[in-house]
């Protein structure tokens, strides 16, 4: 009987108020210290009619390729596409924020709708403010869209660094895709050429990024709207003569 009373007492005294960050050392138990389930690169380009964005469908759990059907590019409102790399749970939280943003925008019922510039600005504020509180959303976001004929493409990092460009890439794409895009991107790319350019980048990432998987989606946004392709895989090339017997002349090397 006494034991049960003690149990009840303890239950009532245990909850700790974690609110005051300045005084309470355990108050930062809620921050994201490191990511768990992560998405790798996003690569996006402006083209003749709008923006093309490519990503693979992988969610890595450390070095394990745990999830292979994660959509990392989503439509936002009527005029924008959001792609995310980094922690997937944080991306899902951002989508919830944007849902609320779009909902409130629609409730005005004034015929106006959020364009990509506005969404990008909102996301920049969110990311930067979280960074200032040492509780970042562990993502690098790519925001592309078209409104009233104006084609827009930008990105925001987890520390709030934000900019626009004709072509962007996150994660490994920074190192592997950017050089290709700098060399081969043109303002008047057709849809076909844009897709081929993105596929060229994605193939290199597949070869050289440990966390890449061979299952990708390419999303397109134009004045007409958003379309996201079905998931598909790319062919890879392994038939270099040098690959067949690389150590023939040097036993024990790699």
């Amino acid at each position, binding site marked *: 009987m006494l034991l049960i009373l003690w149990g009840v007492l303890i239950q009532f005294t245990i909850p700790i108020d974690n609110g005051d960050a300045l005084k309470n050392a355990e108050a930062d138990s809620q921050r994201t210290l490191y990511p768990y389930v992560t998405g790798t690169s996003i690569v996006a380009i402006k083209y003749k009619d709008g923006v093309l964005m490519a990503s693979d469908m992988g969610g890595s759990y450390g070095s*394990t390729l745990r999830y292979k059907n994660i959509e990392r590019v989503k439509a936002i409102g009527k005029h924008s596409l959001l792609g995310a790399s980094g922690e997937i749970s944080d991306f899902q939280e951002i989508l919830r924020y944007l849902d609320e943003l779009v909902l409130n925008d629609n409730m005005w019922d004034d015929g106006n709708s959020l364009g990509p510039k506005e969404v990008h600005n909102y996301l920049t504020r969110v990311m930067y403010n979280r960074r200032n509180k040492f509780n970042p959303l562990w993502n690098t976001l790519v925001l592309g869209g078209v409104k009233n004929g104006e084609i827009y493409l930008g990105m925001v990092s987890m520390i709030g660094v934000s900019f626009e460009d004709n072509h962007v890439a996150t994660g*490994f794409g920074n190192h592997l895709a950017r050089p290709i895009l700098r060399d081969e991107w043109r303002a008047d790319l057709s849809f076909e050429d844009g897709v081929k350019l993105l596929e060229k980048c994605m193939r290199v990432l597949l070869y050289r990024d440990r966390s890449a998987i061979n*299952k990708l989606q390419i999303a397109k946004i134009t004045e007409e709207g958003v*379309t996201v*392709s079905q998931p598909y895989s790319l062919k*890879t090339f392994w038939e270099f003569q040098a690959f067949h*017997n690389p150590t023939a002349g040097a036993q024990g090397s*790699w």
Partner: protein
Amino acid sequence: MDLNLDAPHSMGTTIIGVTYNGGVVLGADSRTSTGMYVANRASDKITQLTDNVYVCRSGSAADSQVVSDYVRYFLHQHTIQLGQPATVKVSANLIRMLAYNNKNMLQTGLIVGGWDKYEGGKIYGVPLGGTVVEQPFAIGGSGSSYLYGFFDQAWKENMTKEEAEQLVVKAVSLAIARDGASGGVVRTVIINSEGVTRNFYPGDKLQLWHEELEPQNSLLDILNAAGPEPMAI
């Protein structure tokens, strides 16, 4: 995103050695990484020690290379002195000697496999620390975590050469599907009384697993094949 190009070259790896009725089959993936970057996507991790003994290397690329270089050198001398091919057991013990006596400095797990006239086909696992374990089959490297259940179910005694090689290729392929540190092509080496056969299975020749799709040349081919409603969700 941290590329960390100064990280030591590590072969995340999946390595396998399997005995069958008449010899052994050794298998490995071909990915060598520096941090998260794939430094070599077509490495050869199955290294020759003698005509009849090979070793699968995992862990630090440098450590495993230098250990196998030393052992090749010792075995060469040993073969001359002995007047006949070295046995698999001797090769494994030389590996063990280096691995054990330098255990504080080395970070490499090895699988020694081969055929000799006394014992036939043999596989010896030499994990971190320098333990030697003779086994009917051995798995190693980061990708092996994903294969323990698979081998518990799929391994059988007295397989044929074809069955053994198929098992190895399937296993490495499954590990590649889930281990980010393994990838590329599957290489196998079959050793028996007749000699040594090297095989090469590129990524696109392997079976597709769960949530993997048939590779295409381009999205454009899919869209054109689909007909007049392209890019519909």
